[in-house]
């Protein structure tokens, strides 16, 4: 590689990469054990369900929409898997049913936004709240224990010293890459965001395509919910509340755009890593939780501003 090529490659990096490097540098001074194995494993464990959820959110954003139900769906699927296991079902059957439930929630979202052309914001907000309400009714608002040993292995288990959840997130990521890059699903995904009308007139069943997208988003939320339930050894309908906005934030910080079907899940991965490192870094640097919230909000706004200004320059 010539020097010019290197410079060009570096310039091609999304700004989040530079910000990531920046905060890592800062935290290596401020945080006492930032590079400890324990801390890195911690980042991986916490980031995995978040990443899976955010990849689903990215799909909804790439088609020009948003999915505000993912946090609630995640919580509900955690409840479902816990209760099903408590009813005596083997953990893998319980997981499977929970995934079907998540996908079904996504399907309903897709049906209302795709077929009946209702606004994304309202539909997903509505289904999210319904799912949360339903979860609260069947649990009575009480945490459901999920103590099955096989199930807990998802959260606690390791392979070659690396947490199982890392491999889960990796597998989901690779499958998503395959789905987006190599199948008509991906082509339709970008087509919907890029120009729905052209896609429709070209003979693509856009309603079906959109329902598929939201179904996958729901399925990913369910996977995140199952992993989170395994980690907390319980399910509670309120577990995912607020995560939908974290997912949106990660998508956008990574450099994806709310319009024109621009972006990729690679960028979302960067966004998730950024936010996760920011959280844990602030934590081990001993910043008080109240101040953390403020700082995260502040840094996110600054990060987005830098990104947007650079994009405009281009």
């Amino acid at each position: 590689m010539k020097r010019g090529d290197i410079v060009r490659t570096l310039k091609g990096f999304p700004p989040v990469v530079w910000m990531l490097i920046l905060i890592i540098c800062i935290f290596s001074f401020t945080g006492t054990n930032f590079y400890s194995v324990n801390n890195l494993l911690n980042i991986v464990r916490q980031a995995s369900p978040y990443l899976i959820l955010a990849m689903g959110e990215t799909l909804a954003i790439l088609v020009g929409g948003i999915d505000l139900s993912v946090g609630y769906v995640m919580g509900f699927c955690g409840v479902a898997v816990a209760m099903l296991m408590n009813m005596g079902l083997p953990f893998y059957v319980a997981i499977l049913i929970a995934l079907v439930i998540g996908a079904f929630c996504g399907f309903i979202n897709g049906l209302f936004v795709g077929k009946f052309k209702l606004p994304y914001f309202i539909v997903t907000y509505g289904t999210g709240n319904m799912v949360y309400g339903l979860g609260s009714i069947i649990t009575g608002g009480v945490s459901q224990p999920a103590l099955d040993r096989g199930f807990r292995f998802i959260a606690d288990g390791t392979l070659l010293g690396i947490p199982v959840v890392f491999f889960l997130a990796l597998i989901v990521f690779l499958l998503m890459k395959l789905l987006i890059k190599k199948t008509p699903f991906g082509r339709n995904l970008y087509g919907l965001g890029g120009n729905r009308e052209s896609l429709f007139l070209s003979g693509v069943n856009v309603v079906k395509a959109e329902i598929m997208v939201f179904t996958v988003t729901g399925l990913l939320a369910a996977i995140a919910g199952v992993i989170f339930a395994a980690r907390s050894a319980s399910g509670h309908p309120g577990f995912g509340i607020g995560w939908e906005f974290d997912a949106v934030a990660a998508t956008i910080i990574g450099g994806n755009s709310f319009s024109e079907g621009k972006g990729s899940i690679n960028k979302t991965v960067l966004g998730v890593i950024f936010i996760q490192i920011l959280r844990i870094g602030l934590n081990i640097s001993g910043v008080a939780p109240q101040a953390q919230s403020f700082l995260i909000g502040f840094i996110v706004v600054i990060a987005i501003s830098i990104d947007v200004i650079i994009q405009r320059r281009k």
Partner: protein
Amino acid sequence: MSEIIRLEHIWKRFTGVTALSDVSVSFSSGEVHALVGENGAGKSTLIKVLLGAYQPTEGRIFYEGKETVIESPRKGSELGIEGVHQELMLVPYLSVSQNIFLNREIRKGKIFDVKEMNRRSQELLHDFSIDIDVTKPVKQYSASIWKMIDIARVINQNPKVIIFDEPTAILSEREVDSLFSSIRRLKEKGIAIIYISHRLNEIGEIADKVTVLRDGHHIGTLPASELCNDDIVKMMVGRDVSQYYSRSRVERGEELIRLDSLELKKGQHDISLSVHKGEIVGLAGLVGAGRTEVAEAILGINPILKGSITYKGKPFHPASPSQSIKKGIYLVPENRKYQGLILRFTVANNIALSVFSRWAKFFYKGKKEATVAENAIRKLSIKTPSSKQLVNNLSGGNQQKVVIAKALETSAEFLIFDEPSVGVDVGAKEEIHNHMDSFVVAGGGILMISSDLPEVVGMCDRVYVMYEGRIVKELKGDEVTDNNIAEYMLGSKVAEAGI
């Protein structure tokens, strides 16, 4: 007539491309100065320099005799240079008069004088013989009315120079006429008009002077009266293009599609037509006469209330574009950017858009897509560096060829072209017509919707004329003339014949 802007030795270089090379030209008050050239000739760059959106790399601009730097569109506007852009620049949910007076509101003290603004808007639009409710949001009006509102907005700013960038591309003949009469009025008021259009006949009608650009070079500026269309075309392309429409002689085959007294929505009824194999059938009419709606009904986008369609001898009930496409019907839509293409996709992605799901049940066939695209690029001579180029970076004519390639790839037998050559330069227009011709030679049938009368007359075997939602006349053989079509589509013959 006095000179108002003079450009001296203007160069504009972008990385790797020289868009303008040593262009010197001057524009005078009270004169309509047409700017012509193929897509990519440098017209857009030149007007952006005039409007202040681009800075020339070299050269000087004199405005009213003084050397001037137009450093921004805002500065241009302050000097009195305004543009009517190709894109529609209105705020959809504001009313007509709010749009016209946007940021230039008339005030009574601190408060907006809404009444006065409405009155003035009404007046401005009346000059174009458009009488609409100016208090309604512009969203509910058609694209051609938007254009007129946009023009009214620009005129309302009392500019000294107005640049029209293809103003007639989406207008019907009648609207073009009223636009021209207001351009003539502006001219009498001493405003300098710079007029860009691909429609050469218009230039002969409205322009006083013509400047021809080719590949960024100034080829010449001549009085319009000394030029005929053939001369202009020769200057534009640097070669002879047969300005005439050439059609191969084809034996009319069996009937492909027949519409029997369709009723679409209120006011659109008695729509009967047929297209045979080997035929190009025209569907003429004013914008808003219901031509596009007919196409959309055949595609299954709009419901059919009454009547029936027979396709290849069997009853056909269109349900959705995907179903119609499976049957061999394809629409090349009116607006390639918003309906035909996905601009952020590559040329290859776009060409494969209608067929990829036929090959790919689960996995997308990237290699097949590339081969198919390469073949289509060669066959239709689409000018693109590669099949991986984003279609957004292609010129209008080449984008249109991509849409046609996409249609041909479906092995359709019946194509509907809605305004096939809008905003396309002369050379590409001829190529598009040739592809249409070879499509029917190969046994296909075409229904062509067009507002370009010479195109309709030159290309079509038969023509149906629509007027206010109905097909009022079928013209065959020698009856297919500009005059006949115009009389029926404007409704003058319709009243006479009591149809």
